[in-house]
């Protein structure tokens, strides 16, 4: 087959490349800096490759504690968020009750205020409740940030499960609970998975509130970044950034495989 020169096609490819560079550029810059001993203007090439920054991070007890805190906090936050929000999401998605819309918009509007003001108000409350600088305090702050994801996305997922798929299961002899378990929940699962990923990332990346409420007693990976930027060489920050991004990338990769490639995709016609 002869290839035909198509200017539109070329333009498209060029803009895709440009966009990829725009998105990936900073990450490439970070990745490069995590492995170089020094790379500063006016030198065109880095002065040498090294793993010292990685060992520095893993030797530093403050950084290690921050990693540990983040890895413990976020899963607990997501689990708690699921327990609290999923029933609410089901109710909002499937039932029609007085004040449903106000409730859903209310959840949304909490996110429309400047967060820092909200956190300051919470901080004064925390002082009286003795939650400042505690694990539970940070947990609650991060939990608040996940609520919008864990209610809105699953609510839409529950609402989009066709009723007659449930009726068909009832007709086939399944009890209401069994229908919920095998049909409703199963079909809403892609939405719930997305909500889990978003909530995890929201919790894992939350810095403002966690810093205000947690520091100096509790540091998480993002709040540790503040002191990193000020007190460590730039390469350590690069290493730490990569570590911070790793769970997000892994999670998104997993979710993509499960949501887009799995059998669940059939139900949502996304392929």
């Amino acid at each position: 087959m002869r290839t035909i020169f198509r200017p539109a096609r070329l333009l498209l490819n060029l803009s895709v490349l440009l966009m990829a560079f725009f998105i990936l550029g900073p990450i490439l810059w970070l990745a490069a800096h995590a492995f170089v001993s020094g790379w500063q203007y006016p030198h065109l090439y880095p002065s040498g490759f090294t793993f010292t920054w990685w060992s520095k991070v893993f030797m530093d007890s403050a950084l290690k504690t921050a990693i540990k805190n983040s890895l413990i906090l976020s899963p607990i936050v997501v689990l708690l968020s699921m327990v609290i929000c999923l029933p609410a999401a089901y109710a909002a998605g499937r039932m029609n009750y007085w004040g449903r819309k106000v409730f859903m918009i209310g959840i949304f509007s909490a996110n429309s205020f400047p967060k820092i003001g909200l956190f300051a108000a919470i901080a004064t409350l925390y002082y009286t409740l003795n939650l400042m600088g505690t694990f539970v305090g940070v947990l609650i702050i991060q939990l608040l940030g996940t609520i919008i994801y864990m209610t809105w996305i699953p609510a839409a997922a529950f609402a989009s499960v066709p009723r007659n798929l449930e009726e068909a299961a009832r007709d086939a002899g399944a009890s209401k609970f069994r229908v919920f378990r095998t049909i409703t929940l199963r079909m809403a699962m892609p939405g719930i998975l997305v909500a889990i990923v978003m909530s995890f990332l929201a919790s894992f990346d939350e810095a403002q509130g966690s810093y205000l409420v947690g520091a100096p007693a509790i540091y998480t990976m993002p709040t540790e970044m503040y002191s990193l930027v000020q007190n460590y060489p730039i390469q350590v920050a690069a290493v730490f950034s990569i570590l911070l991004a790793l769970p997000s990338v892994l999670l998104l990769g997993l979710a993509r495989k499960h949501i887009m490639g799995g059998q669940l995709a059939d139900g949502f016609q996304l392929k």
Partner: protein
Amino acid sequence: MNTKDDMGLELRGLNKILGGRVIIDDLDLSVAKGEMVSLLGPSGCGKTTTLRMIAGFLPVDSGQIMVAGRDVTALGPDKRPSAMVFQNYALWPHMTASKNVAFPLKIKGLSKIEIKEKVEAALELVNLLHHKDSRPGQISGGEQQRVALARALVQEPDILLLDEPLSNLDAKLREKVREDIRELQRRLGITTVIVTHDQEEALSISDRVAVMNSGRIEQFSTPQDLYRQPQTEYVATFIGSLNRFEGNLQDGQIHGGTDVIGIRPEDLTIANEPLEGSHPGIVELVIPRGHFFEVVVRRQDGLFRAFTNENVPTFGEHVHVKIKKALRYQNGKLVA
């Protein structure tokens, strides 16, 4: 009068009000075992509501539903001995065809071997064994419908409910599936209620047809009777074509009066010469309909629509139309 064994479905005095509107109005219906019955009517006549009440998805306001001699009115859909094929099939997209069919058996708690046997038999019945590992999204609409049918039949229900089963299929396939369903229903001898708004479908598939209108059954009889002896003016106009005139029929002529005269197009004879009591007119339209012709004749105060396949006149020809047989209605009811 019925022994318990030959009872199919019985609806007694069903009522349903939804949103302040009477949807079902004191409805009675009696379906014999092994019979195939259509609920036919325009949208909003209550046919789907009736089906959903039989299946148990909608509670009745009052009345009784008996299936195979058992009162099921108070039972939920999971406890009723009925199985439904939904209009859009309602297959579970995350399960393969055989998983879909196996679901009701799994709930019954059958053993794995039994389930496998029955599922394969059911899929074989609808000629779909080769698609047992396909998911609904991977097969055509007609195949999905057969999976839905297999899922209903595998439950060995006392009564099979079909909600507009052919409406999502294209015209060619519709006829074939219609025949397939009928053949299967006859072979299994399963009591079946089918909801449809398509009169051709209802007339060709059913033993008896219940024509519904605003929550009531206008007439419940065989397709032939429905066409030849429509008991109400509503049924006469709803089923097939009808020449409708207001007035009284005397010696083949229509005079002023309060009756309604209905004449089927094939009950008109077209002749070149005047016959006794015939109406003179001019041919306005001749439409070939395949095995017959539809002829529209204009007379002094109206139109005659006739079906004929002999002596087909041509456009503009002067002809004489004679009424062979007419239906007479007073206050909407047939008068003998």
